[in-house]
């Protein structure tokens, strides 16, 4: 029934934090995972200056308050995309964490691309894959540079194809074309594991919520046809 479907899709959009992603992380967690550590002053990108808290002994320190806000927005957005059954593609060209990212994607039931990016993957998809292909609805960059320390081609391609992007930007990255940048460290194992854990938990949470609401709505519609049964109390959405 179109009514219920409409409600299913519009209800989460009314709340600023429908999936309560704020509780998944705290400032202390970010600090312990060394998310605030940036690169040296010489590597600093001009557009990252607003996100930098300061510089100590030539090493940039990222402002974790801003990171918290950006992270909350990004996680909320991914949760909404996962709730609406969108295709999420994890991209990272960092060889150290390639296996970790692929395993995270596999465990959430989403997709990963941590290998050499072929030029026409997004822009020439119909010829590369065949007609009728569905492109990803969200790209998550766990490291927005490629092996030659240049911005990943997928950022530009996603912007061309109108695909929103979420990306962890370090002090040497360009945050311009990314829709939801997350200023933070992308080189430490602890920080990467934290990001993977957070994304995995949000996606699984959102998918479970969707299943739960669908089941609930099915039950509701069954009861409407069966008026002899007592009406169950409406649980919280």
């Amino acid at each position, binding site marked *: 029934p179109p009514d219920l479907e409409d409600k299913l899709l519009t209800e989460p959009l009314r709340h600023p934090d429908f999936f309560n992603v704020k509780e998944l992380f705290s400032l202390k967690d970010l600090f312990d995972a060394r998310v605030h550590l940036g690169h040296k002053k010489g590597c600093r990108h001009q557009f990252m200056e607003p996100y930098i808290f300061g510089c100590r002994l030539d090493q940039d320190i990222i402002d974790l308050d801003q990171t918290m806000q950006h992270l909350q927005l990004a996680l909320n957005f991914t949760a909404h995309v996962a709730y609406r*059954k969108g*295709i999420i*593609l994890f991209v990272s060209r960092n060889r150290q964490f390639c*296996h970790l990212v*692929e*395993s995270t*994607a*596999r465990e959430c*039931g*989403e*997709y*990963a*691309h941590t*290998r050499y990016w*072929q*030029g*026409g*993957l997004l822009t*020439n998809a*119909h*010829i*590369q*894959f*065949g*007609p*009728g*292909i*569905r492109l*990803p609805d969200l790209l998550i960059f766990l490291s927005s540079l490629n092996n030659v320390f240049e911005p990943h081609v997928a950022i530009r391609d996603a912007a061309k194809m109108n695909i929103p992007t979420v990306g962890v930007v370090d002090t040497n990255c360009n945050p311009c074309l990314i829709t939801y940048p997350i200023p933070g460290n992308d080189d430490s194992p602890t920080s990467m594991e934290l990001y993977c854990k957070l994304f995995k938990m949000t996606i699984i949470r959102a998918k479970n919520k969707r299943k739960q609401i669908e089941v609930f709505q099915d039950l509701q519609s069954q009861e409407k046809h069966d008026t002899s049964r007592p009406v169950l109390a409406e649980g919280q959405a």
Partner: protein
Amino acid sequence: MERSDGVGRAQRPDRLRLQHQKWRQFNYLLKEIKTLRLIYTTTAAWRKNIAASGPEKYTEAFIKKQIEEFDLGKRHLANMMGEDPETFTQEDIDRAIAYLFPSGLFDKRARPMMKHPTEIFPEQRKIQWGEDGRPFHFLFYTGKQSYYSLMHETYEKLLNVQKHQDQLAAQGISPQKEKKNLVGSRWVTKTELEGMLLEKLSDDDYSRFIRLLEKLMTLPCSDIEENYIKKFSKEIAVQLQKVSVEPLKYDEQGVAFSTGEGVRKTSRATAVVYGSGTGKITVNGIDVLHYFPVLQDREQLLFPFQFLDRIGKHDTTCTVSGGGRSSQAGAIRLATAKALRSFVTEKEVEFMRQAGLLTVDPRVRERKKPGQEGARRKFTWKKR
């Protein structure tokens, strides 16, 4: 035509210059073709033009129908041949088809055949995504999903082994690596791997995968993942097959003798060499001096004896047929050398082999080709 030679070299003769000109024209054409290709197509289209290769040629329903028809046809064939349909094997089918449809064609693949559809229709990749558009494999968007998932799995095994190693090290046990015999095994080739993954690979990808496997194998605790590694290693058949030397035989008088066979071009010869004798050689019942009037042929016959310093010690009786005088001599030489192996030590057998006495001469008469006078001789070239 003018050519700047740089250093003052003598002009090449006319025919070479013409050949060189033709070669340059051909090379230029090749380059043109290459540049044309570069203009009209793109690298993406070269690599995986899956869309251009057309929709699925063989749908699942089609293959299923083919299998049903094959089973029915097998039963009909068994009935026709008067055999039991239940126990009709593939070899029986092949024999029946060869009997019912005799074909004189040389190429086995061109003859009529009846095989199971899975052997005839090559395995194909089905549509990779479901009804809602979501692909089935989590690495679908990389393009080479099977190859990258293989790399992912192998790397996982590597991490597993390293973890195991760390656990053992924490307990204080140092693992010992048993030397595995690598001689009899080889890694899968690129084509075999392509067949396993149903995907095209590049040389780079293949070498990367092999390097990863070798890295996995060199770790001490890799015995845990032996089963996985075995999937990608094949055994090579032992190449050196030792030819066993036949023992000496003894005839009624107690004289040791041994036989050998030899071939050269179209001649076939058998030789019987007796242990004690005065160096007499009989060919087809005729003495060697009468059968081979030419000195060169008799030298060929004597060569094995001369090589082993046994010229006056053995008696030989040979039979030979086919070929001309030179090839008959060569055939008998090979036959006597093979027969002499039983009289001689292993070291001397190896010397004989290295001297080329025991190798069959593979040279056969080359066929005449059309458009030429002989095998190599072309017709006289006339300028006008």
